């Protein structure tokens, strides 16, 4: 047995041969792109602000700072964009319920008295198949 074994030429598995490195780098780059593609982020999204059912403003969530929302020359509210998220501040409505929560938390911001709806520009609704909270009552 020992004699037979000594005649078998064992080929060593060399994962990193010099000429293949480029190929591995391409595969690695592909995997990284796929991972980042699927990573949920609001960064780069456009936010639409509609007043009385008509879209009046577009903002990029990358454009950080405070944006003033007006209708017929009258201030309705300010929008604060920070960390790829948005919230309503200094609303001119009586109850200020719209100032609760952020766009990332709620998916949409609404000021009912002033008929302002703030949504992210996209077609489908990303309902997640997880145990997270889907809806809130109250």
């Amino acid at each position, binding site marked *: 047995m020992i004699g037979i074994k000594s005649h078998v030429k064992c080929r060593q598995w060399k994962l990193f041969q010099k000429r293949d490195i480029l190929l591995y780098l391409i595969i690695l780059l592909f995997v990284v792109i796929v991972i980042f593609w699927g990573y949920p982020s609001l960064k780069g999204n456009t936010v639409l602000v509609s007043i009385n059912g008509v879209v009046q403003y577009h903002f990029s969530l990358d454009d950080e700072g405070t944006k003033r929302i007006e209708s017929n020359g009258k201030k309705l509210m300010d929008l604060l964009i920070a960390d790829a998220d948005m919230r309503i501040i200094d609303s001119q409505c009586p109850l200020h319920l719209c100032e609760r*929560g952020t766009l990332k938390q709620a998916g949409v911001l609404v000021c009912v008295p002033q008929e302002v709806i703030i949504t992210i520009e996209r*077609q*489908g609704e990303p309902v997640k198949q997880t145990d997270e909270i889907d809806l809130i009552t109250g």
Partner: protein
Amino acid sequence: MKLSRNSWILIIAFICLLLFFSILFFLRSEPEYCSKVDISLGTTVKVVVSSEKDAGLIVDAVLREFHRIEKKFSVTDSKSVISLINKSDHPVEVDEETAFVIERSLALARATEGAFDPALGNLITLWGFDRITNNDFEPHIPSDNEIEEALGKSGYENVLIENDVVILENSVKLDLGAVVKGYAIDRGISIVREMDPDATGYIDAGRDIGIIGPKFGGDYWSIAIQDPRGDSGEYIDVVYLKKGTIVTSGDYERFFILDGERYHHIINPKTGYPVRKTISTTVISPDAMDADAFSTAAFVLGGEFSAVLLPVLGGQGLFMNSEQEMSQTEGWSFFQEKR
């Protein structure tokens, strides 16, 4: 570039893996949800539908129905059916739908022994809760005499309906605000089912929720109940629904604060003042209109009484009193787990 044999094996394995996951991705047939948000009935309405038919068309049809119902049953629109009934000093003949909504409201008022009352229009106007979202709203506390007078012109017993003719006695005024949102949710769900019986999704009207169908066709929707004294995102419970409706009444949505005191929109039909002993009630029921009325009634009656009454009427509930103590109906726990 000449590749080694091992590299060729790796490339083939990678392509196979890619093909495998691509096939999995296309076979999972996860429905995409079409969602739209609008403002109707003085609140935010979000309709989320997944359908093999045109989900966008279905969502639009539901939102149109909300606007139609708002126009018809609003108390602030002078041309609405309710305004016409309230303004008239003689019997008013109404259409079949209006007769149904009023009759159902009266039945719910009788079932809750008047804790829910659709004929509190004079009290609600006196407190100003029908105008609370207007920018020119100025809060004031009515005097005891004013409340006494408005109480005399309130009460569902003064509303008569026979053969689609409505009679309001003792100058009472209808205000269906407590149930019309629920009615709109019920109508919205009916419309979706007429257009596609297999559609799934939900209707969320100011956080009163009606389930159209299970999430992704088979899963539960996880619904959190907002902590009435907590920040946004703080919950007191989570329930799981595949069907039915869930409605919450709270003292924190429509209110004003005067001299450090909070005055909210849920009025005790017996005293004429905002209810003090409850801060939040959540009700699960097959129909949203019933859930709406039960939730208001439970708020007025308090958790102890409601925990007994609600299951008899066909609802389950979770209640929080002004001491922030929680109570619930026996059947509530059924919804706290996925089963």
